[in-house]
């Protein structure tokens, strides 16, 4: 089996294994697994409203996946997408409530503010990695918590008067679309999906079709060789983190300007950033793969909400399945060996 084929088969096997184990868990707990999967499907695609919600959920997942994947391709692990998303969310809402501008200025400004905030939040770990050789995983984890607490503080003191949430953003900064809502039986579907898809194209173009992208990938493959070839490793590390952070910030803008229209005090993380890791991993860090992976996880997450109602199965089952998929992709060495064994049998 060729390597290309294997890269497609491995994630599929991981998804299959995840679903199988999930099914076993349901059966062991005495639930009706068949009914649960039907409820899951109906909850995601049974009505046009749910499908609208799925696409809405997919939007930030694509961007979070892009953020993780972009860093991955440059040899960096950005586990701080969550924090960059939170500051992006905050920045977008801030611009959304603070100004009154015509829509064609206000909306782009709010979106760019989110990207810039995410980029800045990722710049710090990038800089520390480039200058002090500090591992980006730990720094980005710590930055997640700093983002959470600082954003809560700003919401409570600057953007509101000791309230738990900000005001709604101005209409001129909103991504909401009565047209799309009407099309999907009044789901919260918004224009953000176009931004997400555009970003998929941007990432592909940047990495595959520009010389800067070539440099970024080269640094990811072999730092020493790139250095020897005259590329600046530290500049490329910082650039990669900044672009990755910008994608993450945009994911925050989707929540801020599209889904919610405000920012609220958070007791914990949104989880989108960590799901982004799952998306990037399952999607093999490639643009097309990310779209499919985001679609899978998005429909799982939205469909899960219907499981307790229709089948009486706790929706956390889907979180277990997603975790298992991540686990099996991570341990894909096991799956690859298995595939090799099977395909070799025919040769002998």
């Amino acid at each position: 089996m060729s390597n290309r084929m294997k890269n497609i088969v491995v994630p599929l096997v991981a998804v299959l294994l995840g679903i199988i184990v999930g099914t076993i868990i349901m059966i062991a707990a005495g639930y009706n697994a068949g009914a649960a999967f039907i409820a899951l499907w109906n909850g995601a695609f049974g009505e046009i409203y749910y499908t609208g919600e799925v696409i809405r959920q997919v939007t930030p997942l694509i961007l979070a996946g892009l953020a993780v994947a972009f860093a991955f391709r440059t040899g960096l692990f950005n586990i701080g997408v969550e924090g960059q998303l939170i500051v992006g969310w905050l920045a977008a809402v801030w611009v959304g409530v603070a100004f009154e501008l015509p829509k064609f200025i206000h909306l782009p400004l709010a979106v760019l503010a989110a990207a810039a905030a995410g980029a800045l939040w990722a710049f710090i770990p990038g800089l520390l990695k480039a200058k002090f050789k500090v591992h980006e995983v730990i720094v980005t984890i710590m930055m997640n918590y700093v983002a959470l607490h600082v954003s809560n503080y700003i919401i409570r003191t600057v953007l509101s008067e000791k309230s738990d949430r900000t005001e709604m953003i101005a209409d001129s900064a909103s991504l909401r679309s009565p047209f799309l809502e009407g099309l999907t039986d009044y789901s919260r579907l918004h224009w953000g999906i176009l931004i997400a898809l555009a970003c998929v194209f941007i990432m592909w173009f940047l990495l595959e079709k520009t010389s800067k992208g070539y440099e970024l990938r080269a640094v990811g493959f072999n730092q020493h060789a790139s250095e020897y070839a005259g590329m600046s490793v530290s500049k490329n590390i910082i650039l990669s983190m900044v672009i990755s952070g910008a994608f993450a910030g945009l994911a925050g803008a989707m929540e801020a300007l599209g889904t919610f229209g405000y920012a609220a005090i958070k007791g914990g993380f949104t989880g989108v950033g960590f799901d982004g890791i799952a998306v990037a991993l399952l999607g093999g860090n490639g643009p097309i793969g990310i779209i499919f992976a985001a679609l899978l996880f998005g429909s799982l997450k939205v469909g899960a909400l219907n499981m307790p109602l229709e089948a009486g199965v706790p929706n956390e089952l889907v979180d277990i399945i997603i975790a298992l998929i991540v686990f099996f992709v991570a341990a894909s060495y096991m799956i690859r060996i298995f595939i090799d064994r099977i395909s070799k049998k025919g040769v002998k």
Partner: protein
Amino acid sequence: MGLMEILLIIIPSTLLWAAPLIFTGLGGNFSESSGVVNIGLEGLMVIGAFTAIVFNLTFVDVFGSMTPWVALLAAMVVGALLSILHAVASITFRADQVVSGVAINLLAIGAALFLVKFIYGKGQTDIIQKGFSKVDIPFLSDIPVIGKLFFSNTYYTSFAAIAVAFLAWFVMFKTPFGLRLRAVGEHPMAADTMGINVTRMRYIGVLISGALAGIGGGVYAQSISSDFGHATISGQGFMALAALIFGKWHPLGVMGAALFFGFAQSLSIIGSSLPFLENIPNVYLLIAPYVLTILALTGFIGRADAPKAAGTPYIKGKR
């Protein structure tokens, strides 16, 4: 409010908040010293907290006042069991250790909440009847001044945590086992050449980390939160990871860092009742552990270097 009264509030509260961090941080220490990065500490704490609460609620009539301690044992076992997954993925199947850790975190919270709903039919457990309660430690609390400050109105678990830290230091730095564990984390090939079974040592390291993180979660659940829900463990595992780094991968350092972070955490909670802290927004105290960890890594507060082989799988015969 005099200094004495302030200290009487701060010290017991610091010890209370530090105990789970010490246990979990030490767990991370064993895993990372053997060369396996463990981002899954948070998830292991979650499963520990869940197990302890469920065990406590179920068996409180059987074990009476000993319940919390037996529940800790249960949390320890389940934590170790979950960590086997991380060990299998990252040692045997050479998975990316960070990704595997993330999977553990996702899995633990998903599984715990699934089971809570399965067992109790709601999203949160009831509050336990017998948690760890405040005690005056016999004899020691009678010492003038010190007894009142450190040994009154406090918890046995905090002192157990400190004792385990010293034990961990002894095991890691004074026994052949500890030397082997650290050798495997620094230079697995050299260790292998000397006849040490790298895979086995790493499995042991990860299992200990699961056991200790399970205890950490159990301590947190039974002394601080008293029930289990989706937000019971929210970042304590990552803070323990921070303590591990800030403590420079040394058990006593980890203990010190955990005590300091416990201090910061408790200040952010009780700070508003202290006269000199009233006007400082508690956001600074909330982010202090994380910012300090970043500074420590950068080298502003003494450079922290991870075990050399941490994060890389060992493949026999590969240079």
